[in-house]
């Protein structure tokens, strides 16, 4: 019987020495002081580095203290807690800094001129100018992309959930996975090689949309498929038992049930596609002036506009780029938020209908 060794824990009683909140706060203060000291005497500099150091020094101090007071297990537990919370904060820092930085710099040119004028006859160093032509282009290309990708994607999703059988079904599903992984620049290259080089149909907003379709399609298929799979088989059987044809069951029963989820997926896909730059680079060509016709000749888009303005090293161009970035973020976030709100709204409605 080895009870002697085993019972130590049991006999030691339940209460343990623990670090209080105040002690930990003290550790934090000491940590900041130590880090400040390090920054004063070594060539460390910059706010980002300071954050990193504060975290590292805190971890070291807390762990040493915890081992001596609470023991190794508790110290490891505390260490992990600090790392986990720390990594969450670290993950949010880029988001916060992007939003703040873009808002601050983007506000400078967030004016009427920007939203009503193009860059026609505006030189790189000139003030003024706007992104009206780019916004028009982005919205038109986004609409065209959606009009093509959504019906096609939905049909494929319906095929995969309702009609696919055996090897061909798995084959299609496999290639949808493959398509999900296609880098966006490759999608652009494809349309460039097909549309512009081979068919000689020229740069246009529509060519850009086609490249975006390649990106959007697998996203729409996968998200719609997930939603269609959630529709209980009993609903389908109920429809078939009523004597409905399969297509009617799909269109009248399955689709309406899955619709809220599908709409959400589509909006998320749109928000992703709206920010794509690489495919447009090779298919739009880009232009300074307003082009309302997306089918003929080069067109501009917001991401492209930003890319071009960044490559002009003048403060005026940078200001325009920031404002365009802010506009793009707003467009993307609006779609994203709408999608999330739609989920809430739809699930609440459905919940009450069920209850």
């Amino acid at each position, binding site marked *: 019987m080895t009870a002697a060794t085993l019972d130590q824990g049991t006999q030691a009683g339940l209460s343990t020495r623990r670090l209080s909140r105040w002690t930990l706060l003290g550790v934090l203060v000491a940590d900041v002081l130590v880090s400040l000291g390090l920054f004063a005497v*070594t*060539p*460390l500099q*910059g706010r*980002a*580095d300071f954050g990193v150091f504060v975290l590292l020094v805190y971890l070291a101090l807390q762990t040493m203290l915890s081992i001596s007071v609470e023991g190794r*297990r*508790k110290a*490891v*537990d505390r260490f*992990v*807690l600090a790392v*986990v*919370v720390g*990594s*969450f904060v670290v*993950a949010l820092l*880029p*988001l916060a*800094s*992007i939003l703040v*930085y*873009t808002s601050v710099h983007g506000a400078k040119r967030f004016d009427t001129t920007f939203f009503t004028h193009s860059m026609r006859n505006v030189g790189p160093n000139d003030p003024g100018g706007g992104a009206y032509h780019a916004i028009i282009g982005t919205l038109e290309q986004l609409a065209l992309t959606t009009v093509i990708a959504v019906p*096609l994607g939905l*049909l*494929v999703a319906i*095929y*995969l959930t309702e009609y696919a059988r055996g090897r061909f079904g798995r084959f*299609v599903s496999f290639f949808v*996975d493959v*398509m*999900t*992984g*296609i*880098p*966006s*620049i*490759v999608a652009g*290259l*494809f349309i460039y*090689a097909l549309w512009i*080089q081979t068919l000689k149909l020229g740069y246009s907003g529509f060519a850009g949309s086609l490249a975006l379709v*390649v990106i959007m399609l697998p996203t729409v*298929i996968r998200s719609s498929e997930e939603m269609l799979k959630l529709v209980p088989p009993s609903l389908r059987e109920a429809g078939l038992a009523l*004597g409905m*044809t399969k*297509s009617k069951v799909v269109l009248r029963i399955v689709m309406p049930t899955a619709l809220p989820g599908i709409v959400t997926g589509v909006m998320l896909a749109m*928000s992703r596609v709206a*920010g794509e*730059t*690489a495919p447009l*680079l*090779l298919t739009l060509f880009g232009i300074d002036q307003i082009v309302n016709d997306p089918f003929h000749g080069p067109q501009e888009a917001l*991401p492209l506009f930003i*890319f071009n303005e*960044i490559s002009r090293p003048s403060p005026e161009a940078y200001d325009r780029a920031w404002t365009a*970035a802010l506009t*793009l*973020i707003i467009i*993307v976030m609006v779609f994203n938020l709408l999608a999330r709100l739609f989920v809430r709204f739809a699930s609440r409605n459905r919940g009450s209908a069920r209850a």
Partner: protein
Amino acid sequence: MTSTAPAAPGRSRLLQERRTVPDRGFRVLVIAAAYVVLAILAGIAIFLVLKAVPALHKDTANFFTTFAWNPDNTPAQFGIGVLAYGTLVTALLALVIAIPVALGVALFIAYYAPRALAQPLGYLVDLLAAVPSIVYGFWGLLFLRPYSAGLQTWVARYFSWTHVLGTSTGTVGQSFFLAGTVLAVMILPIVAAISREIFLQVPQTQREAALALGATKWEMIKWSALPYARSGIASAAVLGFGRALGETIAVAIVLSTNYELVSKLLSPGGNTIAANIALTYSDAGQVGTGALIASGLVLFVITLVVNLVARAIARQSTPAGSVV
């Protein structure tokens, strides 16, 4: 319906009517849509190969082993080596930085955050995925580069003996390190989201088994959650790696590109396949364009392999309800 089983004359016609023209038409339509997907993929492969081959024929150097990119010279000399190297290095760097943070975020949201806050906080991290890549590039160039310069200089000064964490020019800045960091931020949300979903799927009975034995929270995670989530995390990581490999515009902006084999991560320079396409296509001649398409084909194949690996890992042992 079955009660009228005795073969009534009208019955077979009734059944046939059910397979009416619209019903068949719809069936044909969805199958056609499935073929369109296959056609697009076939088209990508065919057209990329078709346009790449003539340029590859003009290449007087070995495409796979040459570390130079002069397709429009006479004679043309270009190889994928230096670009593929940069692509892999930046993506690996992104993975090394993103994985620990993403796991921390996923654990925080699944197990540590107060329940009422978990969902909104998870959504905040998901928002990172909604930031356009051009904005990441711009932010990386104008914000992250100056703000991380101190750290980079410091690391270069005290760790240059490792060779990898050094700089050959004496300056730091638009380096692989910077590109890798920006890419890490970009792939973080996807890796974190998938890992989070898997952590949330760990059965409660498993977690309670550990806790009831007197495990601390971390010991519970180590014994119950991590073994269960291992393959899901691995597949999320590979998926993130695939994303990083194909990312174009952010890398094109933050990297000050050249065609040298940069082995010191803090040195400005280097290049990736995708960034090279974005930055040079407009100046490329006949052969140059074909060469870029050839490089795109290589990128396509690399990401394809990576994504298939992710798929295989996820299939292999991810528990029911895979989120990948």
